[in-house]
């Protein structure tokens, strides 16, 4: 059973803000370091949050990232305000991307974002609709 979680990060992510893109992940990484979280978990978390953060920057109208921690797990929530993912199964398929050519030229949109998130997360839950945007919840185990 999970103990009560404490919020350690809440940051807004703006659409197409490549200047700040990655900063929430960087902030979270520094916070986890200070909390003494093992470096392998910090690394895993950085990969997950960077992918989710850049998804918000590239694909959404803007959103926010929240991180909560308890003794046994870390919870990352990434919520955006739309436009939603049309086909979730496809979004989890390696190589599938809806990114524009311009975005691909920057080295994004290889269709590995959510695939990487799934690989490193211990649990992942994605809900997406046109009206309500996309809501991702990832759990990373801290115990053992």
């Amino acid at each position, binding site marked *: 059973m999970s103990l009560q979680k404490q919020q350690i990060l809440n940051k807004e992510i703006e659409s197409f803000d*490549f200047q700040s*893109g990655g*900063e929430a992940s960087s902030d979270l990484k520094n916070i986890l370091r200070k909390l003494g979280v093992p470096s392998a978990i910090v690394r895993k978390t950085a990969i997950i949050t960077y992918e989710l953060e*850049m998804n918000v920057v590239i694909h959404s109208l803007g959103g926010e990232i929240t991180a909560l921690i308890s003794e046994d797990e870390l919870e990352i929530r990434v919520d955006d305000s739309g436009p939603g993912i049309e086909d979730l199964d496809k979004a989890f398929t390696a190589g599938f991307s809806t990114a524009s050519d311009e975005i691909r030229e*920057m080295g994004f949109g290889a269709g590995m974002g959510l695939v990487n998130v799934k690989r490193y997360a211990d649990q992942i839950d994605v809900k997406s609709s046109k009206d309500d945007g996309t809501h991702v919840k990832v759990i990373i185990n801290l115990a053992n």
Partner: protein
Amino acid sequence: MTVKELVDQFDLEVVAGPDLKKEIDGAYIGDLLSNVMARAEKDNLWLTVQGHQNVVAVALLVELSAVILVENFDYEENAVQRACQKGVNLLKTKKKSYDLACSFCESNI
């Protein structure tokens, strides 16, 4: 080997050098940011053709020793500013990734 020693030995251009004393441990070659995030290791050099600002975010997150832009590609100005603020080394060279990697191998990097 430090980034400064690497710059001198391989005649690399320093575009942003806020932390040239950083130690180097291996290298990663790639232009897809997701791959770099997932595969590059701490203190690696990163050989790429991507010179935009988000490259700095990736380098910072993975704790790379330096980014090396190959084949005379240029960094965007906001990437250079961000690198200086965040302590990320940005280097460049005329050489191709393969040729540079070969010369790194010969020097046991």
